[in-house]
């Protein structure tokens, strides 16, 4: 169990390809950190640097209070779960799990105790005598995790451990990882490209893109106050809608104008904008699909659009709507709120109006793509 500190960590490959730029992060003891981002963003590289599988080009990495830049992976006291499980195909599950302990010349009884205990936790006791090829994907994943937990490592690294599983199994394993974390209370670093996993598992989320950290924060923070356009778009599904708008500075307050409607901003937001010294300018207004609602009574301050696609998701509808200038937005409308009659009106080509509360609005600078409200 240990804290981790990455200071100015950088990874440069041959030919000057920079995979990770100036990575700074402190990870507290027993924290569950998730690195998330699209493929090629440097999240796996960072994890592999922590594991010692890649050299650190620059900066320092500290585990506990030891600088481990030049320490071999085997001496870092870490365990790692790989995306493709990396189970040793030629030995049994039992020996797979015991492998690291045997290399440490651990007493046979102790090995047995730990392996059985880990197998118990993961519910794979009955498979101990099998070879990995005779296991299903989910079982292999459990063995891979089991192999890591018998070590009782200081830091637990997981590199996209669920991405090879089918959707149903993935949800199940996700829940199990949450439970597992409760049982073995240690530091976790988890890499994924799936924002749902990131949101559900992480104490804090590190969102990365092109080798840069975009934002670090709790799931709630990154969801409610995204730092920039990328984070706003990456977290949440379906993606946040981005609309062109104009920010107008009045006397001591701000208003956003778009598609003929005016949204006066709350005092809190105005204060933030004023503090930044933002004047009247073009902005991008972000609003999440789930924060929109349909307006049926031709109320003021509603935006009109043409319905293109109506996806029935069961408990809600996903409406793809084209606005006057061709921008496409998605609305998430709970079916419970709709009468039969109104639902029938939501057919291809029909016009409809929608609105959103001021509270959920995000504003971004179109040039820097940074949030104006952060």
């Amino acid at each position, binding site marked *: 169990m240990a804290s981790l500190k990455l200071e100015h960590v950088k990874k440069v490959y041959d030919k000057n390809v920079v995979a990770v730029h100036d990575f700074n992060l402190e990870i507290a003891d027993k924290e569950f950190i998730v690195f998330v981002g699209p493929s090629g963003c440097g999240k796996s590289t960072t994890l592999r640097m922590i*594991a*010692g599988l890649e050299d650190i080009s620059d900066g320092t990495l500290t585990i506990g209070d030891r600088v481990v830049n030049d320490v071999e*992976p*085997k001496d870092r006291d870490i365990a790692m779960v790989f995306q493709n499980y*990396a189970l*040793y195909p030629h030995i049994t599950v039992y020996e797979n799990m015991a492998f690291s302990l045997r*290399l440490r010349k651990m007493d046979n009884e102790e090995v047995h105790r730990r392996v059985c205990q880990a197998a118990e936790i993961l519910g794979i006791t009955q498979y101990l005598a099998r070879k990995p090829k005779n296991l299903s994907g989910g079982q292999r994943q459990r063995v891979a995790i089991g192999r890591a937990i018998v*070590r009782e490592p200081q830091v637990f690294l997981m590199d996209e451990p669920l991405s090879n599983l089918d959707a149903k199994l993935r949800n199940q394993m996700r829940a199990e990882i949450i439970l597992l974390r409760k049982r073995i209370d240690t530091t976790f670093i988890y890499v994924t490209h799936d924002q749902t996993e990131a949101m559900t598992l992480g104490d804090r989320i590190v969102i990365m893109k092109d080798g840069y950290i975009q934002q670090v924060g709790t799931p709630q923070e990154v969801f409610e106050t995204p730092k920039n356009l990328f984070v706003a778009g990456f977290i949440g599904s379906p993606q946040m809608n981005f609309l062109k708008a104009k920010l107008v500075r009045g006397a001591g307050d701000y208003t956003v104008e778009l598609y003929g409607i005016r949204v006066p901003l709350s005092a809190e937001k105005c204060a933030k904008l004023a503090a930044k010294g933002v004047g009247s300018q073009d902005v991008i207004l972000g609003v999440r699909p789930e924060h929109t609602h349909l307006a049926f009574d031709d109320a003021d301050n509603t935006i009109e659009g043409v319905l293109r696609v109506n996806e029935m998701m069961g408990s809600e509808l996903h409406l793809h709507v084209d606005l006057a200038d061709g921008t496409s937005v998605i609305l998430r409308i709970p079916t419970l709120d709709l009468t039969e009659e109104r639902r029938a009106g939501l057919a291809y080509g029909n016009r409809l109006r929608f609105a959103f509360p001021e509270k959920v609005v995000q504003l971004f600078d179109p040039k820097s793509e940074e949030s104006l409200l952060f």
Partner: protein
Amino acid sequence: MAERKIPEVDIIVDEKAGVIKEVGPQRKLRSKKGHERRTNGAIYTVLTVMSIVWLVPFVFLVLQSFRSYKLEKGGMVDYLLPKTFSLDNYAFLFEGSNFFHWCGRAILVGLACAAATVALVCLAGKLFDRQDRGARPARVGILGACLAAGYALLVALTAALQGFAPAERPVAVLVCLMLFLAIGAIIARVYLKQDSKLLRSIPGYVVEDRHEGAKKLAAMFAEFALLAIILQYILIPMTKSQYLLWYTNTLTIALFTAVLQTAIVLSVSYALSRLRFRGRKLIMNAVLVLGLFPGFLTMITLYFLLKQMGLTQSGAVPGLILIYCASSGMGYYISKGFFDTIPKSLDESARIDGATRFQVFMKIIMPLAKPIVIYTILMAFMAPWGDYVFASYVAFGDQQGYNVAVGLYNWVNTNDFQNYFTRFCAGGVLVALPITALFLALQKYYVEGVTGGAVKG
């Protein structure tokens, strides 16, 4: 409804005739079947003809090896079947006049040995039980004891050969051992094969099949090694047979080369495939360029280097081992290609689990690379049997240092060809038999190796 066509099944109902005319799929199917049969017939014909062409020279070889060089001509004749089948050529190889007289008695002794082996191996098989997982050392111990007992018995029986005249003994021993080894080999093969009827009849007998190839190889290797030792230390001092000497030379070279070359090739290919270090690309490119120089270019220099070390002429055996192994690191392509297919995450995982790179090599990669290890051993073992060029150059006319290829080549090309041709045939048959058996037994691994090598370049 004069004529109705049912499109799906293409049946035409002819009302006038009152019958159903079938067309379409059904007939097509039938004609397709006929076509298929004709094609297959043609293929079988071609394959049969090819098989005949492929086998005929070998059949001829064997037939001519039975034509006595004393009774008939030993060179070229205009008939295929010997007038009388005789073993003169073989007897000549072993330089003994009473060869078959000894054989008769020795066979009895050999059979007794073999019977004992069968009993012992079966007993060992019975002790191998899958249920009892932890007892491997015990099992190995029992097997070892069985083998030791078998050999003790053998020694005892050879002692019983005292009845033979002293001059007869060597060949008697040889025949005993050959028999013993042959039957031992068959038993080992049967015993290692999981679904053999004989062994399944023994209650509780099961072998894990993942070790099959390795065990086969180990068994054969042991047999060959034993044969080499026996030839070297028992038979050659006792006979004056040149052929046996050459045979032993080749066998010794092949055994050493197989071990050393495999170690070198695997080391190099592992390093180039799994480890990343400065100069790796340079090494690979250098090997590529060096490989474009014809191998014989360097012959005189090599000869001189070996001569300085005293490893030419009568010392050709260690000299040749050195030549075959020294540069063998350059032949890393195929095994590197195989290593490349083993996922890298296994190495990484093992390293995080606490293994050094050496441990990764021994504990993870080697067990997974078994097919290619066997392939490498097989190739390294087979190559020295066919090498004429270096072998003849290094031996430089000294018969002590010949291998079989040089010796037999000289019989047909420089010596009295008309007298030695059938003896060449006999010698060739005795070389080809064990090599072919080995190759066919390990064919699977050979195929795996060449296919992998060709695909990856």
